[in-house]
């Protein structure tokens, strides 16, 4: 794991020569996420404080469809793919890049994942769990609405891809 993401990097000094704490770094990342951009900075800081980093190596699954999870993810660096796993093969649905948000349904309800997400490169994410999200959601409902907006759009896009894939199967299979 001697990637550029390694431990030493956590203490890289900022312009003032003081080392920046993890909280500030998380905050910078969250500010890049459109759904969060409207939260006042002092409150977004609380998100940054309660979110955790997680790393995956290329090829590892972040989660699998059907699993129960309670985390939502923001990509810090690296790439990941959303896929729907079928019996014989998988369908590629979406690619997530830096500051993309995924896994958001788990923040709203304890439901099984409807798709799998897999790291295509070495991947680092910030995670937030359902309880934290819901506590903060109560204070800033507009975050939830913005997030739902992103999620619903993506869901529709995926649905279309899936239907297309099924239609193809019916034609050729």
């Amino acid at each position, binding site marked *: *794991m*001697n990637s550029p993401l390694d*431990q030493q990097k*956590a*203490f890289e000094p900022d312009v003032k020569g003081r*080392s*920046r*704490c*993890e*909280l500030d770094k*998380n905050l910078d990342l969250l500010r890049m996420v459109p759904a969060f951009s409207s939260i006042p900075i*002092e409150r977004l*800081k*609380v998100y*940054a*404080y*309660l979110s*955790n*980093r*997680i*790393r*995956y*190596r290329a090829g*590892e699954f972040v989660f699998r469809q*059907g*699993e*129960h999870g309670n985390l939502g993810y923001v990509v810090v660096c690296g790439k990941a793919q959303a896929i729907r796993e079928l019996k014989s093969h998988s369908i590629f649905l979406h690619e997530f890049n830096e500051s993309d948000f995924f896994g958001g349904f788990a923040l709203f309800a*304890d439901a*099984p994942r409807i798709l799998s997400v897999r790291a295509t490169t070495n991947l*680092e994410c910030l995670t937030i769990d359902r*309880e*934290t999200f819901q*506590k903060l959601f*109560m*204070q800033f409902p507009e975050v939830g609405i913005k997030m739902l907006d992103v999620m619903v759009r993506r869901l529709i896009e995926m649905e279309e891809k899936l239907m297309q894939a099924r239609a193809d199967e019916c034609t050729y299979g």
Partner: protein
Amino acid sequence: MISKKPLFSWVLERFRGLQILLILLILAAIFLRVFPLEMQKRIVNSAIAMKNMNALFLYCGLYLGAVVLAGLFKYIINLLQGYIGQKILFEMRAQIYNHILSLPLPFFRRTPPGMVIASLTSELSSIGEFMGGAIAVPIINILTLLSFAGYMAYLNPLLAVLSFSVYPVEILIIPVLQKRFNHLNRDRIDVNRSMSNVIGEAISGMHEIQGNAGYELENRKLERFSARLFDIRQHMNKFKFLTKFANNFFQSLGPFILFIVGGYLTIQGRFDLGALVAFLSAYEKLYDPWKELMDYYQDYQDSKVRYHQIMDSFDVKPEFQRLPDVDREPHRLEGNVDVKDLSFMADGQIRILDQISLNLNAGEQLALVGLSGSGKSTLAMVLGQLYNYSIGHVLIDGVELRTLTRMDVSHNIGYVAQYPFIFDGTILENLLYACQSLNQNRLVSERPLPAREEIFRVLNSIGFSEDILAMGLNTLLSPERHPEFAGKLIAVRESFFHRWGGELAELVDFFDVNRFQYYTSIAENIIFGHPNRKPYESEELPTNNLFQDFLKRADLHGPLLHLGEELAMSTVALLKGLEQDDFFFKMSPIPADEFEHYSEIVDRLTRSGRQHLPREIEDALLSLAFRFTPALHKMASLSPELERQLLQARNLFMETISTADPDAITFYKPGEYLYAHSVLENVIFGHLRMEQAQTNERIRQNVVDLLSEAALLDDVREVGLEFQVGSKGDRLSGGQKQKIGIARALLKDPIILILDEATASLDNASQARIQHLLNSELKGKNTLIAVAHRLEMVRDFDVIAVMKAGRIIEMGKYEELMERKGLFYELAAGSTESF
């Protein structure tokens, strides 16, 4: 039934010996109270008037002796009275609680918990205080009154009659006032209960209140009741103090009459001075018993009101008999279930179950399916004897279920609710709840609790082993209870290090003396060991002089103070306004209850800078720095320089302490078990880095493999069973709670098992496991009734009953129902399509 029992029967039926002893003591005490009066008279008349020194000493001595003894007796009487009262209270509470526990479930749906709690705690306590004196107080005071009155009549009958003349007036007035008071008191209890309910509701719905900032709304709800309470209290005080006033007024009329008449008689020479003095003190002494009688009367009225209010609210008949009328072992049922024309009404008119008939032979499996609201859960609950039924029959082995005692039912039927209730305590306690309950009845021969192997077998069969193992790996062992196990784990640590130590060097925050640990606090990083003495515990270090000196020598005092300051500033700024919710403090070095303190410190720092800080502020800041755990507390960072310094300090500290206080610390060494760290951390001898999810999974798997080779997995699971689940099990996931619910029933091995959507929160794998269990081990052995939410689960059931609006509209095997193309077919088609 207990709720019909009169208040006084509690006093009269119990502790008769003690009560008689009490009355004897009282008689003696009364004598000792009248005796000094006579002495008083003799001191004035025979000793002082006759100038007789000997008589003076004798009478004064007797006076003193009587007063001392009277005081002593009063003390013993009070103790005894208190004892009897608390004993009665103890029994009352136990019996009423016992009665409440067996009330029908619908009772609890309409009764707010706040009301039950208030009844059993505060309301009952004040009755208990009254009960202790319920017999003694009236006897003591009436007798005292009579003896003083008698003594006064003996001194002068005319004066006695005159001074008693005020009492009948009081006896007429006071009950009128009291009656009004009682009425208000009843209102007060009602309002008090409603108020507890408002508070109770607010607490359960706190997230909704805070989420909507409904503070004002809730405040107003409470205000309505507290304003009403204020009014009632005002009125009650009016009557209470009016009674007092009447009492005092009439009481002080007495001396007036005495001085006028007694003075006249004495001047005339028809009454002697000594007698007048004795008479006056006797009259004054009348006041106490009279006042106590009045208080008693008020307490009695108050307790009566409270008591009836409590008993009326629980005046409901339990639906089922708890124990058989004769001593016998519980029935051993075979598990044949026969339901005939069963109907179940709610609120008297709505038919939730409508003429249900079905038949299930012992060992058969029945699935209940249907849309929500079709009555399938109600039917399951009726079959589990949780609801009573009045129309139709449910026969278990030919016996009407309604007539079976709870004892029989609990020995034969296991019911698992969709959301099983988890009690505060350990997982093991929760698992054994059903088995332990069976043994609580002394009539029945004890059934051994399931052995460890049996528990693990059941947990494994429902896929709960992994969870328990994970919990075990996260447990802290205690040096008193697990010294042997800890030793075995050190051996596993050796083989772990041997096999994976090199490979994992970059992935694990090892407890290496030459490396800084990001997952432990600064204090632990310096000490690098486990404190054996209190002054070396993390919270005590700021006030430990030896440690303070050490910090200054290591040049750490300044930098750590600075770090503490930074932490205080950034944490206070971050969490300001969130301090009412503990949740936000789980990754904060400042716990919620210290937040205010640190806010004040930060205020001071910003106001007047960091010069000349008082010692206690310095200590607080140091204490914060000591707690700082770099990997956990994101609001500050540790400079590489300070990190190096801390590492050097570690060596210096080791040297210092090994000369100054060699046994104070057990240093972390590969041969020591670290009791402040979890089992997993002890095996890998380090911390996993949080951010590498999958790698950690692999490492954990390696540890599990090693433990398995060393045949220690069951021991780890055993400590996992000690996991504290938290109130209502809130440290467990929904799936884990369901698994505990299922295991709890399975461990009891009931002949009839009822699962009410008991697998709804489980993931697919666990679901499949339980499916397999039902199809193999339980098949043909236990009668199974399962309310199913997923139709793929019911394929192998012997009978499937499809319910709609309280009726069974289709019944048969899976294939038959599919062929019929009825509701079941529709449901099945719907469930696949929606996916």
